[in-house]
């Protein structure tokens, strides 16, 4: 029998732990569990405990749903668990951590590209008008 995805609860006390996303969906349908595992384990191996879930596909209300068990996350952080960047980003957006630098970076890069696109559009329109006139 396969171990449960919600966690076996078994771990080595002195091994490093990591809170990470573990892909649970199927082909073309990503879905992630936020789980705490031993740091050197593969994502396909049994986890210690599931701490939440993350659905990266927006639903009909254009929401990406995240569930977090903050109490247990606190517990594992107290135990000195490492947090992987994607999880840190999610926790930052949820207000549990400070906003992750990568979130800031993607935000300002997106802003920049958007502004550039707008400038391009305006230029194109101007060029059109000049040719028409």
């Amino acid at each position, binding site marked *: 029998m396969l171990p449960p995805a919600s966690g076996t609860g078994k771990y080595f006390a002195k091994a490093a732990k990591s809170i990470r996303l573990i892909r649970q969906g199927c082909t073309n349908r990503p879905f992630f569990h936020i789980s705490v595992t031993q740091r050197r384990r593969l994502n*396909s191996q049994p986890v210690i405990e599931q701490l939440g879930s993350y659905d990266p596909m927006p639903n009909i209300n254009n929401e990406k749903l995240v569930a977090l068990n903050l109490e247990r996350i606190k517990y594992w952080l*107290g135990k000195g668990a490492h947090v992987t960047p994607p999880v840190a980003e999610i926790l930052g957006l949820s207000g549990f951590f400070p906003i992750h630098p990568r979130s800031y970076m993607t935000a300002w890069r997106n802003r920049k590209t958007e502004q550039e696109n707008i400038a391009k559009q305006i230029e194109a329109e101007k060029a059109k008008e000049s040719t028409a006139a």
Partner: protein
Amino acid sequence: MISQNTFLKRSWPMLIQCAEAHRKPRWLPVAKSKLYRIPKRPEVSEEERLELLRVNNNYKTQMRAIRRFYHEEMIKEKSTRDSASSEMSLRLEADEWERCVIINDKWNAQVATEREERRKIQLAEMEELALAKMEAKDKELKERLEKAAEEVRRQKALCETFITPDKLEEAIDYALANPIDYNYAIDLHGKTYLGTTTPTNVHKDEKTSTAV
């Protein structure tokens, strides 16, 4: 020596279904088509680099503080849990336990009364149902008996007209003495028309005539 149980009761299977099955195994060399491909380095401007550095430093500092906070909290909790065996906490626990027991007893009593009521109602319902069933059964039995008695009566009445071996000669004589001709028709008013339009016993008549 590895026992059989280590294989049977291990927490994860010996053969792992690899999630990254579509990827190249680690030990295979670089594909020929990708051998001289030089991946493009990401271009980060000086301004952006400095900003990122600043943000990252801030983040790291804050995270370190948060980590330390949770770690200290855990230690504190642990110490409180360890010191929970003091008299004060014992008394508090006992009080809590008593309160819980009282509440539990109350709930139990309430549930018991509810259950008793429910059981009474159910019993009454069951009795009613059983009585109704018995009545229905009695009625059916009676009906069947009546039906059977009726049948017996009818058969007895018929019995007098039966032809027994004793009466056989008599019946034959009677039948021969009173031949009945069924060759007739009935109209809507019940009037009988005796005789036939077509000769039925022509053959027999001929025979008799030739004999005569």
